[in-house]
């Protein structure tokens, strides 16, 4: 494997959801996403309507990857946040280590409020994610890992 798989357990997922639910209310957002910087969706909370959340996550990560590279080209280390303001809906993306906190909001909120509330939530998400990464490393060395029990038949059955 190229890198250690990230394993998110139920209690860690619930902690993330709790932070996201509070952030949603505090900044009167429409929906809040937590996305890995490589484009994997982790969790969301709020009104997604018929939005394709998987594609949204991939594009958010691509967006941050592109702007981070642009930052380096102009001598900045990183852009800690990316903002897109639309006529009705806007997007605020906060870069937290290897994850992204993405807030979608409309005219019921303001960019200032979203920035302020997201900052606090970012610290909490970062702490939970550190916990996830630490546990994932442990999981890798565990001989009793659930995934060690996957058989060839299990894998073949996916393609039958």
């Amino acid at each position, binding site marked *: 494997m190229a*890198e250690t798989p990230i394993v998110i357990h139920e209690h860690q997922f619930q902690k993330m959801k709790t932070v996201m639910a509070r952030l949603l209310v505090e900044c009167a957002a429409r929906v809040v996403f937590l996305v*890995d910087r490589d484009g*994997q969706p982790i969790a969301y909370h709020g009104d997604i309507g018929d939005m394709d959340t*998987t594609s949204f996550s991939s594009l958010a990560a691509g967006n941050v990857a*592109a702007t981070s590279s642009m930052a380096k080209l102009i001598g900045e280390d990183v852009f800690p946040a990316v903002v897109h303001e639309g006529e009705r809906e806007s997007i605020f993306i906060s870069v937290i280590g290897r994850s992204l906190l993405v807030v979608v909001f409309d005219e019921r909120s303001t960019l200032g409020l979203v920035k302020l509330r997201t900052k606090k939530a970012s610290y909490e998400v970062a702490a939970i994610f550190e916990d996830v990464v630490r546990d994932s490393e442990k999981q890798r060395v565990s001989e009793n*890992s659930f*995934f*060690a029990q996957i058989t060839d038949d299990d894998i073949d059955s996916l393609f039958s």
Partner: protein
Amino acid sequence: MTFINYASREINCKIVYYGPGLCGKTTNLQYIYDSTAPQAKGKLISLATETDRTLFFDFMPLELGTVRGFKTRFHLYTVPGQVYYDASRKLILKGVDGVVFVADSQEERMDANIESLYNLEENLQSQGYNLIDIPYVLQLNKRDLPNVVPTEELAAELLRKSEPIFEATASQGVGVFDTLKAVAKQVLTELRKG
């Protein structure tokens, strides 16, 4: 990087289709998209130029089924093949779990294949990976065209380890799913190893 979520019981993996410009990477994804049941796939997102050349990436999520109660989803990406989009290619390789190299079998594209394969090795290294260690499949595409290089010759130039090789005509779907299955299987086998 594989993401395993015990709460939603999902495994998410990232597979990248790499290769020179116009070798058929997007055609592979388009065929998979067209041939898959609606409930197993998300949208096919294509960030392309006005002339339909991939500008940043193509993306589609594909759900293959369940392994031991976990939904298994593969995120399929292509990179832009044109030489000058190298910065984009590097970004898309971040967090990759498996790579498919799509080679253009036409004689006049041999140099482009070799250059692109070197570029893949370099870009993987710049992201901290090594082609030898990661799940990898070689697809020899456009086998239906008249001016193709014999398979043995292509293999002699492009083979990097004992990776599976598939002859393909992606526009007609030949070899497309065999290639996908081979790389997906390697990714899951790696996951089992831990």
